[in-house]
Every structure is written in structure tokens, then in C-alpha cells.
């Protein structure tokens, strides 16, 4: 009886829950990774044999390579633009006493609360009206709009938590506005910028609903080409591409962690 009393059932229940949770989360991903190494010409599980030919096929299919380049360009461009527009806005709004500041901040964050497909559809018509049409510039503008909240939210959160005394001390000691920003403010908000930039890049890179409306021969992004390919082709190239994307994401996170430290960024977020 005493043995039974010592068993901590809550511990086993929690352990079982965690195991089931991780299996539930990881099993579909694992299946995709396994299927990407199949020798069969179609997606089937379990796989009949092993091959890396579908990874080679990714690079043989030119639209994938072209679209990957566009996706990277757009994700980097939208992140930089969101930073250039969002960081100054945060510095102003986070400490503004104006009654409009809250409303402007909410407005900047509003793309988060709208379905992306609505933003994409509306932007197509609006930017076409302005003369941008279906172009790289139009795609970049719309991606910037949806990336902006990620940078604004994280940078504003970090900056609002900083005591004013740091910047005031630097000013009292004779530093000009730019020196205050460069030597005091920027280092302090850098975790927020890094975290926001990471979210922004990933949001843009994976985006389908917006990119879908601006896809053309020269502006198709990887998710748009993947969707079009998947609807009409049955081979495991998409599984291989997904595996490659996951591998790149993991490598990217490891590199960022080594250079900067994921902990600092997640604290900021």
C-alpha cells in the first residue's frame, strides 16, 4: 500500500500528455521528411525505397529556384522597410502623451487582425488603381504592410519598458540626438528589432494569401509556385522542398543563436 501511495500519478499523466503532444506535433512533419526520401514517383507511406532524386528535382525545376529568389528578396526587402518605417514610429508612439498615439499604434497593428486574403485582394485593386499593377513594387508594399505589426509590436514593447533616464542621462552628459540613439537607444531596443525582424522575415517568406494576388511571371513567390505545382503534380518534390525549408530554418535559427542568442530575442518578444 505504501508503494502505491508513493506513485505520483500526476507526474505520469503529465509525462503521457507531453509525449502525446510531441508525437501529435512532430509525426506529420516526420512523415513529410521520410516521404521526401522515397524512390517512388508518387507520395506513399511507408516508402518502397530510398532516393534523394526529389531534392535534385527541386533545382531542376526552374520556377522553384526563381520563386525562391523572389521570396528571399521580398522577405528581406519587406523586413528592412518595415524596420525603417516601424522603428521610428515606435520611438515616437511608445512614449507619446498624445491621445492619438494609441489610435495610431492600433492602426499600425491592425493588419494582424484582418484576414490576409482580404488584405491581398484589397491591395491588388488599390495598388492597381495607383498604377503599380501586378509588380514587384506592389508585392513589396503589401508585404511591408503585413510585416510592420511584428516589428512595431516587439520594438514598442521593449522601448516602452526602458526607463527614460538612460536617454536623459546621455543627453545631460552632452550627447546629441543621434549619438543618444546610436549609443543608448539602439543597443537597448536591438533585441526587439531582431525578434521583430525574424517574425517579419518568416511571415513574408511563408506568405501565400497576399503573394497569390500579385503572382506573375517575374514576381511569383515560392508558396505560390508550390501551391500551383501541388495542385497539378503528384510527385514528392513538394515534400523534399518542405524538408529543405525546415532544414534551412533550423540551420538559420542555430546560426542566429550562435551569433546573437535566441534567448535574448524570445525575451524581447
Amino acid at each position, binding site marked *: 500500500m505504501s508503494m502505491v501511495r508513493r506513485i505520483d500519478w500526476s507526474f505520469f499523466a503529465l509525462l503521457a500528455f507531453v509525449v502525446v503532444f510531441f508525437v501529435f506535433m512532430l509525426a506529420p512533419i516526420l512523415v513529410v521528411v521520410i516521404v521526401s526520401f522515397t524512390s517512388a514517383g508518387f507520395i506513399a507511406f511507408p516508402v518502397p525505397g530510398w532516393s534523394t532524386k526529389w531534392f535534385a528535382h527541386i533545382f531542376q525545376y526552374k520556377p522553384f529556384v526563381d520563386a525562391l529568389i523572389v521570396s528571399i528578396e521580398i522577405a528581406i526587402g519587406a523586413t528592412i522597410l518595415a524596420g525603417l518605417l516601424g522603428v521610428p514610429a515606435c520611438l515616437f508612439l511608445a512614449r507619446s502623451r498624445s491621445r492619438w498615439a494609441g489610435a495610431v499604434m492600433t492602426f499600425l497593428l491592425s493588419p494582424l487582425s484582418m484576414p490576409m486574403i482580404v488584405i491581398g485582394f484589397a491591395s491588388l485593386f488599390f495598388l492597381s488603381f495607383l498604377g503599380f499593377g501586378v509588380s514587384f513594387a506592389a508585392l513589396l508594399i503589401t508585404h511591408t504592410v503585413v510585416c510592420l505589426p511584428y516589428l512595431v509590436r516587439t520594438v514598442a514593447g521593449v522601448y516602452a519598458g526602458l526607463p527614460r533616464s538612460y536617454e536623459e542621462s546621455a543627453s545631460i552628459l552632452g550627447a546629441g540626438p543621434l549619438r543618444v540613439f546610436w549609443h543608448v537607444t539602439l543597443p537597448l531596443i536591438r533585441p526587439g528589432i531582431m525578434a521583430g525582424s525574424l517574425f517579419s522575415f518568416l511571415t513574408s517568406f511563408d506568405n501565400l494569401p497576399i503573394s497569390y494576388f500579385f503572382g*506573375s511571371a517575374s514576381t511569383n513567390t515560392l508558396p505560390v509556385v508550390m501551391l500551383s505545382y501541388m495542385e497539378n503534380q503528384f510527385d514528392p518534390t513538394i515534400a523534399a522542398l518542405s524538408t529543405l525549408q525546415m532544414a534551412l530554418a533550423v540551420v538559420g535559427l542555430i546560426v542566429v543563436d550562435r551569433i546573437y542568442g535566441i534567448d535574448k530575442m524570445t525575451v524581447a518578444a
Partner: protein
Amino acid sequence: MTNLTRRTFLGAGTALGTSFVTGGLITGGLSRTAYAQSAEITVTAFGGVWEKAVRDCFVAPFEAKTHDKANVSLGDPAQWLAQVEANPARPPLDVLIMTPDLALSAAKAGLVDDFTVDKLPNLAKIPKELTDSVMGKGTIFDYGVGGITYNKKTVSNPPKSFAEFVDRVSSGEFVASVPSISYAVTPIMLIWAMAKALGGGVDNVDPFFKAMAKMKDNLVFWGSPNDFFNQLSSGEADLGVYFDGRTWNHYDSGATWIDFLNPEEGGALNGVAVQKPKNANPAAWAYLNEILDAGNQAKFAEILNYGVTNTDVVYSDKLKPRVTPWQKTSFPPYEQIAKVRNEWVDRWNREIGR
């Protein structure tokens, strides 16, 4: 001082944004100028083997004959229609590949040009019904048939008609996979086709919904064509309503256990239409004429395993038994279906829910 810094940066951000917007306008303007001066057109294709077939069978002969360039934009009809709707004066696409229902929408909205033999000599070889089906503002150049695809390992004696399909699935002899309502052509390939086969039609789809109620315990649904194949290969389903061309593509990829039959009542013809947006580059006519050419279509059919519409096309020995002549299919009244489509979707959601 601090406020000044903030304002400086806010101002800098605004200036950059303005520069960016101005630059975009200039760039956009320049790109359009370049487009107007060059003999380049932008055509459309679905991804994967479709895109390769479009390049090999249509783009290559077009470029060889005209020395113009055709850029290929990948995507899908809803996307392309939205882009043309947003830019009717300067459409970003010169040739559209559309499903018949969207082709009709484009025709009714006045977004596309009339197809005539003057502009397209090869149109004379396309059956008139296929051009009339999209109001003469385009034509169907390629088609598939929504029939019965089955796993030969588990179904040795497949149902030969939709009526037999319903009876044998209802009795529990097979588990069937049918397209869900989220799939764009389900109202045509399943609701209308089965209603018609069971004695109904556009005005009466009760037979279809009654059949679905009878089969409900032995049905699974597919949301995308790949789902169907996975269900069949995993054993989750034995047979289902699917396309002929896709079935043969699976077969040629190594899934030799799969087979297809056109039901006795005739499976629904799922056509692919081509259209030219109004104000698109006139060079698109030459490209469209290549799409309707018999030799190019025969090559296209050989790659995709789907039927094509030029009456001069001679299929290879491999393809001949696979392609169902369009006259043996059920030709959907696309325009009438478009009118009641939403009603059918509502009823599906109420009665079937998946």
C-alpha cells in the same frame, strides 16, 4: 532632445516611405513602357508538368514562328481573373487559362475578347459547342472527365455506372472517396453529374442528395486531388469520383494498381478554356492559334494524358484507349450551373456538412 530624435527618425521613415512609393511608381511606369515597346506577352499555366507542356507545346512554336517572347506565369484561374479585373485597361496577362465557370464570369463582365476564325484560323477545327459554352469569348482546348477511378487490387469488378456506384457503396461493398465542397468543380463533376445520371438535372438535384444520404456511412471526402490518391493508396477508400488524366498520370508514375472508367451515363466534362483579356497584347492571338493547333495539341495530350479539342488531332496508340471522346461525356450547362451553384453549396453545407 529626445523628442527631436524621435521626430527625426519618424521624418526619415516618412521620407523613405515617400521615396519608396515614388520610386515604385516610376519603376512601375518604366516597366509598363518597356512592355509596350517589346514584343513580349505573358501567358498562363498551372504548375508542374502542365507548365512544361505549355512551354514545349505552345510557347516554343510560338516563339519560333513569331520571334516574340512568351513569359509563363504560374498560378490558378481565380488569381488571374482577379488580376485582370483589377487592371482592365492594362491587363498584366495576355492569355488566360480558365475553368469554364470563371471563363463565363470573365465573358459576362466584358473582360475578354471574342474568338473568331479571322483572328484564330485554327478555331475552325474546334467544335462549335465548346466555343459557345463560354459565349464565344474563348474556347475549351483541353478537357478531363470526372468518372470512376478505382484500386484494381480491391475492386475487381468496378461499378459501370453512377447508379451502380451508388447502390454498391450504399450497401457497404466499397468505401468511396468523393470531392468535398471545398474543391472548385465539385458542383459540376459530382453534384450535377450524379444528379443527371440519377434522373435529375440542373433544376433538380434531389436525386444526388438522396444518393449521398444513402452512401454516407461509406464515404470519405477529398479536398485536393492528392488527397484522393493518398486515400486510395493507403486503403482508406476503394474507389471514387476522380479525373481520367490524373488517374493515368498516377499510373505512369508507377501506381499501376489504379484504373479509370467513364460511367455509362457519361462523366462530367471538365474543360479548360483559353481567353484573351481585352486590351491585352495583340501578339497573343498568334499564341492562342498555336494552342488550338492540332499538332501542338496532340503533343500536349501525350504529356498530360488529357483529351484535346481540335478535331484533326490523332492520338497515339497509348493515349487512344485512355481518352474519352468529349461526345461521350456529359457536357455541363456551365451557365445554368453558375446560377444555382451557391444554392447547391448551401444545401451541401446543411445536409452533408463536409
